[in-house]
């Protein structure tokens, strides 16, 4: 029983990270109708920036992470600006553009930081909590808390603010949005930047739990993407459910199937998606006018 809870706790911590990644995917998809294939590389960029601020510049972790999120948001703005001419012509071309952007980010990361990768020590010194034999590293709780707060803030932004509503309107009908005075390009830029910031936050939070390397975005990105699909692509609560789901499934799969854990996770994912293709919170795919 203790082992069950231990595995569950571990799965939830990583699930929180996957939720943030899924959130970024979903936001960009919901507002731009675009699946951003650079998301994993952006995550990696955020993780490298945060670890550089934390380790080399010796900023406190709580400062390094927001700084990395902001810096990566700017990178997101740059990518959107470069790809913008493709957006109004053909979303599929923009999608291919994001693949290219991701490759460029990876190459630049190797140039700056080499391919060795680096470990990031946990910023929380406290000993793990012991709850009935179940060891919970304190940092994992911090990650879950930060992810939860972020999701609440994002939901409030989308539901309660003018810009948030505008962002969603642009995804549903860019021409009608233009007619009411919304700057579609700027709205997409902000959406993309927020998506990038979320990826950077996920990567930064994950780095003490994992390993920062130029390829870290690949597997994390895929897990996050699967989480977004599982929860319902474009749905915010879906991203949360999907992320936690993938995290927990992956944790138990690793426990029981060891070396085949990735395979099992994706078999389970495939079955769930076949049963319910639109995901748990099944939103219809966003149509671009």
């Amino acid at each position: 029983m203790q082992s069950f809870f231990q595995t569950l706790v571990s799965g939830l911590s990583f699930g929180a990270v996957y939720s943030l990644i899924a959130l970024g995917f979903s936001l960009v998809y919901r507002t731009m109708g675009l699946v951003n294939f650079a998301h994993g590389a952006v995550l990696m960029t955020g993780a490298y920036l945060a670890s550089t601020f934390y380790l080399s510049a010796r900023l406190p972790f709580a400062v390094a992470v927001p700084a990395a999120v902001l810096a990566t948001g700017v990178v997101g703005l740059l990518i959107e600006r470069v790809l913008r001419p493709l957006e109004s012509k053909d979303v599929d071309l923009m999608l291919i553009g994001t693949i290219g952007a991701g490759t460029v980010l990876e190459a630049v990361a190797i140039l700056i930081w080499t391919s060795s990768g680096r470990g990031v020590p946990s910023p929380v010194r406290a000993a793990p909590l012991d709850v009935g034999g179940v060891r919970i590293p304190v940092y994992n709780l911090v990650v879950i808390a930060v992810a939860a707060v972020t999701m609440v803030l994002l939901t409030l932004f989308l539901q309660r603010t003018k810009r948030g509503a505008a962002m969603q309107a642009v995804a549903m009908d860019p021409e009608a949005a233009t007619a009411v005075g919304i700057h579609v390009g700027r709205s997409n830029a902000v959406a993309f930047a927020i998506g990038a910031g979320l990826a950077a936050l996920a990567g930064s939070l994950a780095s003490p739990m994992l390993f920062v390397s130029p390829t870290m975005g690949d597997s994390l990105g895929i897990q996050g993407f699967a989480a977004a699909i599982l929860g319902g692509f474009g749905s915010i609560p879906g991203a949360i459910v999907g992320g936690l789901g993938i995290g927990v499934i992956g944790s138990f799969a690793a426990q029981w199937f060891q070396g085949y854990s990735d395979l099992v996770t994706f078999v389970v994912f495939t079955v769930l998606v076949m049963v319910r293709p639109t995901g748990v919170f099944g939103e219809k795919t966003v149509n671009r006018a």
Partner: protein
Amino acid sequence: MSTLVVENLAVRYGGVSAVRSVSFTVPPGESVGLIGANGAGKTSTLRALMGLVPRAAGTARFGDRDLGKVPARHMVRLGIGYVPEGRHVFAGLPVEKNLLLGAYASKWDSSCRARLSEVYDLFPVLGQMRGRLAGALSGGQQQMLAIGRALMARPVLLLLDEPSMGLSPKLVEVICSALQRLRAEGLSLLLVEQNAMLTFEVTGECLVLENGSVAMTGTSAALRDDPRVRKIYLGL
């Protein structure tokens, strides 16, 4: 108060001319209709005015502003509202959010709330459905929503593209009354329609477009009695 002056407007898609040369004016407080069959160039005229498609030739001025230099998203600031063909409501957002977004260009404050009440007054059914997702509304309700959304920015000139399309005669009546009421309140209308009867009831002047050119112009009253118009467009 601004007059809309359109001179020799031409619109081309690739090598095909959709609009060859169209000229008209809409003085403040007046209403003008553009009628014609499918493909006559009516919708292209409106979209070119809004800046959603490029003009191949001609000019359009609103007051002293050259509309050719105004990006589409700034039209609303000039007081030009747009109700697109096919409604184009924000399907995934609730009715009230749709309306509020109509006022995107200004603050969402008490004056905005007041405007919202006015729209609910004009279209009571929208008030009843204010929390429903716009995509769940019927065609007629969505049309009211699209018009209401455009009204939220307090336009002085409203461009409408085939508002009666796909609506039952009863609903067309509702739209017709609403437009007449707006006219009475001083709003200028530029109405593009296939439904000639509706157009004659709502506008003072009309242009008949055929194959991208103006085939006939005149007051709505005169055109309604014209035998050619009666035969082709009214089936009488």
